[in-house]
């Protein structure tokens, strides 16, 4: 969505909803805004129906705030908890059939490259663990193996949240859920390691307990995906409703996970490293 489209004609400006007017006056489109500016501008996500204390909502909000060029970004989603928040954003957004997100994103990226040859259009896949690790694993892996220039961001809540708590491939081994009363019987799918071996140029694993790291990782991932190759960011976003902890403990649970099995990790290919050095020098 470019500013030209966003700005209403002066005669009709008063008729628009208050939220829209605020977005035009005080949205993040005008200048570079980041995670550290949160609270001083109108965020592009509107009110959403997520549960109180939802980690996914926090993850989606932090990712939306750290996009380097929101006006030129296209977000691809898939059914799941993540899409409740995304459907309310003032961004170009496309929903897909469950699991098809990376195939759709590959096509859209190629089309945008032909349509806008002299502009950077970022295609960002922002979906949950079910979309990437279970149902869409083949599409995701193949888009990485084809070296498509897209960014894939997983908000990993370790459960199928909005259908009542079934185990997903990313659930911890032994985790008891509403619809997995005996506990999960096999370990987490190592998607982060798969990303490294299937040709991602940059990858990061973070949790919602460290927002500044999310900001840096998302920004780096999108910049690398413009020129070098596919990138992957995995964000741990615990679910208080299905993992059964009080909603005010979401960040504490994420922090404990960060100290244990969900430690911060990052990899970057030599070409991507070279590209990042060039771009940071230019800025």
């Amino acid at each position: 969505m470019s500013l030209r489209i966003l700005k209403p004609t002066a005669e009709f400006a008063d008729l628009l909803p208050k939220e829209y007017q605020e977005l035009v006056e005080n949205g993040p489109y005008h200048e570079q805004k980041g995670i550290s500016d949160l609270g001083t501008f109108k965020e592009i996500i509107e009110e959403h129906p997520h549960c109180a204390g939802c980690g996914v909502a926090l993850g989606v909000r932090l990712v939306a705030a750290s996009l380097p060029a929101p006006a030129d970004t296209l977000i691809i989603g898939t059914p799941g908890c993540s899409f409740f928040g995304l459907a309310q954003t003032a961004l170009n957004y496309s929903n897909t059939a469950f699991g098809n997100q990376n195939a759709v994103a590959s096509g859209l990226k190629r089309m945008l490259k032909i349509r806008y040859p002299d502009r950077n259009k970022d295609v960002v896949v922002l979906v949950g663990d079910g979309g990437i690790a279970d149902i869409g694993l083949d599409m995701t892996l193949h888009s990485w193996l084809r070296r498509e220039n897209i960014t894939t961001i997983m908000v990993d809540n370790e459960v199928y949240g909005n259908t009542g708590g079934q185990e997903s491939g990313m659930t911890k081994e032994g985790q008891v859920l509403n619809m997995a009363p005996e506990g999960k019987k096999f370990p987490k799918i190592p998607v982060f390691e798969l990303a490294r071996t299937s040709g991602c140029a940059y990858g990061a694993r973070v949790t919602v307990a460290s927002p500044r790291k999310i900001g840096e990782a998302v920004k780096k991932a999108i910049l690398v995906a413009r020129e070098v190759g596919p990138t992957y960011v995995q964000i741990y976003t615990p679910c208080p409703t299905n993992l059964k902890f009080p909603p005010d403990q979401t960040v504490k649970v994420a922090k404990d996970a960060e100290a244990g099995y969900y430690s911060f990790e990052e990899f970057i290919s030599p070409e991507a490293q070279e590209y990042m050095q060039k771009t940071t020098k230019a800025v």
Partner: protein
Amino acid sequence: MYVAARVDEEKCNGCKLCILTCPDPNVISIDKAKNIGINQARCKGCGLCVVACPKEALTVS
């Protein structure tokens, strides 16, 4: 029952940790004088900001 976060302006030092832990967009805002404002109509009362606040300036009631 209606539950929302409230801020004690005397204790608050404007560190912005609450803004970074709130899952809902456009609920907590900060102005240039570092005053925290909470949109109580939109707050879901999860209490994440209360736990994050090092000065104990926030309450959910």
